[in-house]
């Protein structure tokens, strides 16, 4: 078998394994919890009439959690991989470079000024502000860091954007009109899949899917960017379109995700890094497996949080940050060594 054929079959195998992993994680999320259910009970819960207890647990509590985990994880994995391809830098991740915190800032602004609603179009206000925040951050980042792709520049710009967004969020908390609003914002900021409904899933899904679609259209361009902007252009890649699609796609998807579940950090950093060797470091081929891997990681992390004794109080975003921050440090050192 020739090398490309081996990679092709390997890629299919990789995607298949990750898909199985996601499915297993999703099923475990449905089965396990404060009340452990059997497979038959889960199936009954999925089909039973609404007033049934099983239906309540499976359809109202666990299913939205699974679907949100799936969407958010896929968005974070995919966006991380896309950012890393676009910036040609393994440390570019929506959380690290400040896109997630600007999305959170946008959402906080909407909540703080009482623009958030839950009925009809008003429900879109928080995600819209989140997406706008993400877009602003991405554009700033791109303007500053795109010419000089050095690790240091990217991380420093990320620090600046994160610090600024953090300061404004703190200001909102500081001036918050009542302690309930403050604790609401604070808990939401920590990042969690708990207590979300199918309405939240319905709100996120179109943006996640459309954003993801735009990113997947960039696969070929990201592949060519391996050789730098100029050669990519001489290979027939429309760089403006590539950058527009990647930036707009990640802003939509990450902005909407963060405004619904809060910031769940480092998924986009860890997952593409682990998958990269399996796809021969190809930025285009990294996209789909990273989405699947992101979904699997978020679902398993959420499962761990739920099953841990006393874990009901633990926030998913805190757990991913605890895992991700040391990993980021390791990656930073490794990258600096490699790029020297």
């Amino acid at each position: 078998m020739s090398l490309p054929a081996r990679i092709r079959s390997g890629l299919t195998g990789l995607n298949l394994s990750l898909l199985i992993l996601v499915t297993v994680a999703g099923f475990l999320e449905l089965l396990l919890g404060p009340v452990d259910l059997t497979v038959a009970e889960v199936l009954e819960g999925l089909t039973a009439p609404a007033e049934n207890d099983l239906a309540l647990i499976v359809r109202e509590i666990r299913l939205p959690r699974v679907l949100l985990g799936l969407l958010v994880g896929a968005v974070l994995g995919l966006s991380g991989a896309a950012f890393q391809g676009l910036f040609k830098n393994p440390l570019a991740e929506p959380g690290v470079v400040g896109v997630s915190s600007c999305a959170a800032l946008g959402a906080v602004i909407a909540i703080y000024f009482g623009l958030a609603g839950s009925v009809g179009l008003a429900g879109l206000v928080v995600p819209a502000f989140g997406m706008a925040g993400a877009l602003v951050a991405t554009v700033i980042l791109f303007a500053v860091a795109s010419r000089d792709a050095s690790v240091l520049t990217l991380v420093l710009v990320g620090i600046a954007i994160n610090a600024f967004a953090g300061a404004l969020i703190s200001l909102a908390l500081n001036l918050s009109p009542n302690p309930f609003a403050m604790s609401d914002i604070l808990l939401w900021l920590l990042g969690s899949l708990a207590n979300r409904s199918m309405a939240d899933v319905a709100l996120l899904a179109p943006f996640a899917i459309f954003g993801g679609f735009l990113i997947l259209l960039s696969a070929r361009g990201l592949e060519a960017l391996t050789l730098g902007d100029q050669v990519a252009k001489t290979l027939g890649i429309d760089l403006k379109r590539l950058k527009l699609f990647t930036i707009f796609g990640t802003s939509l998807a990450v902005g909407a995700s963060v405004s619904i579940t809060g910031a769940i950090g480092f998924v986009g950093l860890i997952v593409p890094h682990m998958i990269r060797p399996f796809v021969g470091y190809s930025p285009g081929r990294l996209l789909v497996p990273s989405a699947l891997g992101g979904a699997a990681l978020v679902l398993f992390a959420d499962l761990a949080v739920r099953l841990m004794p006393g874990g009901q109080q633990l926030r998913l975003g805190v757990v991913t940050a605890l895992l991700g921050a040391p990993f980021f440090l390791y990656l930073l050192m490794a990258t600096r060594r490699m790029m020297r």
Partner: protein
Amino acid sequence: MTAIEVKNCSVSLSGCEILRHITMSLSRGQISAVIGPNGAGKSTLLKAIVGLVEISEGEIAVLGHPISTYQPELLASTVSYLPQQPEVHWPITVERLVSLGRLPHLVAYEEISGDHQRAVSEALDLVDATHLSARTVWSLSGGERARALLARALAVEAPVLLVDEPVAALDPAHQLQVLELLRKKANEGLSVVIVLHDLTLAARFADHFVLLNEGEIAAMGSASEVLTDDNLRDIYGIEAKRSEGAIIPWRLNPPG
């Protein structure tokens, strides 16, 4: 038949005029060497031909059609370009690197197979890099890397190849190997435009010479018309020794 026709072309970069009123015509199936001192505008000329820098006036045509009328994919499969300092941002394998040269011919998500695979294997073979195909680009020596990158440019199988200093990192044997390879491809019909600093190699392998100086064409034509003692003295500020057609830069010769 002309491969590249440049008519009264000027290029300005950040307010500075890099190329002024360049007019030249390069034939198909020839090696045209673009030579000149540092900062003469050689690399910019190549970039202008492949559409990487905007021209402020004039027109550039490739194979008889102005480059502004080409669809990006068609231009990409017509003109292949290897920059002076090529970048490779991920530790991909040499085979993967070379297969990126097939991108202009592929539709999205199409995998390399059949004719594309043949082109990749041939390009690797041409630069004597088949044995490197499974190595990562980052692990190669300077010379191996330069050959792998040239294979990437050859894998496009474009009728026009623009290469900017492709042999600077190579040892003499590989320099000769690469230039002989380009010579052979030119004899088969490939139009090659090459930026070279090594006048000896240029004189030995090129059919046509374009001597640039401070953004203008100082001389153009065959070796005997361009590589004259006067030009070497006035433009490079050197005196050369000649031996059996070879030109050996010998000592500095301040103009005047």
